[in-house]
């Protein structure tokens, strides 16, 4: 499925993922981890992409086999590697903690494998979640 850079876009993806999970009897915890990862990844992609009359669009493809779920998120925004940023300091107290910067860290930790490539003027992010680790 494909979503445009508008506020409801992320919600549409997660609704579609919930439907996919139900159809294919995906374990609840796998579906929840994927929802978190997609929410953070797509919100991130949309915030770095173009807005205005020609907003960037994000395409999400989900593949399922017996061992793993693979999610491919492609956007046509400017080159942006979400995993290039340093991990935030999660040992700071509530008062010291800056608001934000956690999303991509969560994606990397919740998924079993993440990958980024710039291909044909598109950002291509691949997320892999092993079902055995569910």
């Amino acid at each position, binding site marked *: 499925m494909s979503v445009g850079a508008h506020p*409801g876009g992320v*919600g549409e993806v997660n609704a579609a993922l919930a439907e996919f999970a139900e159809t294919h009897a995906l374990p*609840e915890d796998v579906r929840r981890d994927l*929802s978190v990862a997609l929410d953070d990844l797509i919100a991130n992609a949309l915030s770095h992409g173009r807005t205005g009359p020609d907003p960037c669009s994000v395409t999400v493809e989900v593949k399922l086999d017996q061992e793993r779920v693979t999610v491919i998120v492609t956007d046509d925004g400017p080159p942006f590697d979400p995993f290039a940023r340093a991990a935030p300091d*999660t*040992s700071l*107290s509530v008062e010291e*903690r800056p*608001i934000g910067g*956690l999303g991509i860290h969560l994606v990397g930790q919740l998924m079993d494998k993440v990958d980024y490539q710039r291909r044909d003027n598109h950002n291509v992010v691949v997320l892999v979640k092993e079902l055995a680790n569910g």
Partner: protein
Amino acid sequence: MQIFTRTSDDIHIVSIAGSLDSTTSPEAQKSLTAMLAGAKKVALDFTELDYISSAGLRVLLGAAKQLRASGGKLGMFGLNQSVREVFEISGFATILSIYKSEAEALAAM
């Protein structure tokens, strides 16, 4: 996402049902900020919370700061495995009080 509140003695119990993500967090933030004004002890009931992303964590961090500033307390209970995992990875599990059950939260707060 839906938010309900009830009280038990001097503790406000705020139940958040559905998901706390980039779509729902602006509304959650607005509701929570209003609910926390004047509250001292707040227990968040996550029994019906499906998942939480970093946008949701930001809302909770804001709530925790708001309560700390006014000398209040923030606790939570009823976390499912995915929500608990997100709290542990983010480090929030060590900075916000997590209780096993509503009874434990109410007794400790």
